[in-house]
């Protein structure tokens, strides 16, 4: 056989070169995205090396002195790493459980509402927090809770109670943050569950009612079991992201107030401060890499579980 291959010629063995040439237009169509991800997602990867050096601005990442795992040891030994990890995970656990519980309840109750108009309007209202920036969320919370002009304290003083100085006391903030997260995400989360409920065969529900099922039994034996796969999948994927914190929320609520953030510090806030305020790129990168690795392993594990339970929903 001749070594010279005319790739455009039909009837030849499909070699890589031929496949490549035949799909050149589709490849070109993917090229902008490929270049994009190389430039913004893959190009930063070698920079992870900064986690293993004592970073010096003049020498650059690869000229700085190699220190092995010193940066990891430093944050681990200070107890900081453990504190950040447990905060991040505990907050996410609270978010996942509460958000999904409330979203399921809201979705089920929405289904019970007969007036289409009422349902549409209330759904639209609940969806509003999804569309606003985290900056505005920070201002909204501040307007409600600050001790000088805040809404809460206006009400408290009118009732003759002492004002609460919430921005000078970190203790209530875990609760506040969980509540604000719930406020922001309920409309969004209930959308998915509501769609799943609407997907249940209406005749099944009607048949159960003809058979005399009451409202509670209908929810308990038909709606909840039908929602189970959705709930399980969403919970599992949420668990896969359990070491990733909601930076925007935390930063805009407490990020600039040391009294508050020391009580609720999460990995992202620490990394952000270390990068942007302290220019301590080596420590920041060490903590970031630690987080990325755990997150990576967790997603793989979760995907393995999902693949066993509901193969259709697995990511890869």
């Amino acid at each position: 056989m001749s070594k010279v291959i005319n790739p455009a010629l039909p009837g030849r063995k499909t070699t890589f070169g031929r496949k490549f040439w035949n799909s050149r237009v589709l490849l070109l169509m993917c090229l902008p995205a490929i270049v994009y991800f190389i430039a913004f997602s893959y190009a930063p990867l070698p920079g992870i090396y900064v986690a293993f050096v004592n970073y010096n601005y003049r020498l650059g990442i690869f000229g700085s002195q190699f220190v092995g795992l010193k940066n990891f040891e430093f944050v681990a030994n200070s107890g900081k790493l453990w504190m950040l990890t447990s905060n991040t995970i505990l907050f996410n656990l609270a978010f996942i459980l509460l958000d999904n519980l409330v979203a399921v309840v809201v979705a089920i109750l929405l289904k019970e509402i007969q007036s289409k108009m009422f349902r549409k309007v209330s759904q639209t209202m609940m969806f509003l927090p999804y569309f606003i920036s985290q900056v505005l969320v920070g201002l909204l919370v501040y307007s409600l809770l600050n001790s000088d002009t805040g809404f809460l304290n206006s009400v408290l003083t009118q009732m003759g109670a002492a004002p609460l100085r919430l921005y000078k006391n970190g203790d209530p903030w875990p609760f506040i943050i969980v509540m604000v997260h719930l406020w922001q995400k309920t409309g969004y989360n209930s959308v998915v569950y509501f769609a799943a409920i609407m997907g249940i065969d209406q005749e099944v529900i009607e048949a159960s009612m003809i058979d005399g099922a009451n409202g509670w039994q209908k929810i308990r034996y038909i709606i909840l079991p039908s929602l189970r796969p959705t709930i399980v999948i969403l919970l599992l994927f949420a668990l896969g992201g359990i070491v990733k914190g909601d930076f925007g929320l935390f930063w805009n609520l407490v990020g600039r107030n040391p009294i508050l953030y020391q009580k609720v510090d999460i990995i992202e806030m620490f990394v952000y401060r270390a990068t942007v305020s302290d220019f301590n790129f080596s420590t920041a990168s060490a903590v970031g890499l630690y987080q990325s690795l755990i997150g990576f392993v967790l997603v793989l594990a979760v995907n393995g579980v999902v693949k066993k339970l509901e193969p259709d929903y697995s990511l890869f």
Partner: protein
Amino acid sequence: MAKNNDDMMDVSAKIKLTTSDYVIRGIGYVLITFMALISIFPFLVILGTSFETEENIISYGVTLFPRSPTVAAYDLVIKGGTIWASYGLTVVLTVVGTLIGLFICAMTGYALQRRDFPFRNAISFFIYFTSLFQAGLAPYYLLMTQTYHLNNTYWAVLLPLMVSSWLIILMKNFAKSIPHELTESGKIDGAGDFRIFLSIILPMLKPGLATVGLFLALGYWNEWYQSSLFLQNMSVLPLQYRLYKIVNEAAALKNSVAAQYVNVSNLPSESLKMATAMMTTGPIIFLYPFVQRYFIGGITVGAVKG
């Protein structure tokens, strides 16, 4: 059981609601009303307070119903003038970023679901991997500032929000719903892949374009994070980062209004924050009820499938 098929229409008449049905329905109306009101309550507070005088805010706190309604704060923000530059910047970033991002996502999403594209799995994984493992903030920050030198340029905001793996996957799912026969018929007519994409697929992809485009536009409009990383020394800031600075920094508040209109020492800072918040978020609040169905579509497709 089978004979019921004839009188399906009568089914609802045969259903007798039990007491617990009514109880649940009642709880539904009460709880949903409560949740809906809670969701918009903080906005109403901001809205009400933005029309209140600074003296009243200081003495009585924020309010739903201003005691002496005034547009003074809006007047000050508008006269300050610089907010229009921020508006212009945000609109340009949103429009340009959304259009380019949309085009890239649509091309890629279409190509990646083509069954006759042998590299679809490899490229899909190459793109998907970026959401599984990231370098983290510090290496990214160093790359953007020291290698690309994008700090204090608007590219640092425009580029990072333009494409994401989940938007491409979302677009791919929309493109999948277009029958492959359309591509085939285009091929038979002798059209190339790009021609097919432009003249056959794009018009069919409108729901996908609307959905992905709205996610992109919302991302650009609400952007403050990349700005906080890279736009330290810029005088004109995107709207939400401008709001961020005004909320968090006294100096930014002063700079946001022209000095000739007020005595800077007794700036109406609280009402100014509220008015700025309303002005930067207003367009979203007015628009989202009309486009939310696209987001709902995108969320239900995207939530369960990464």
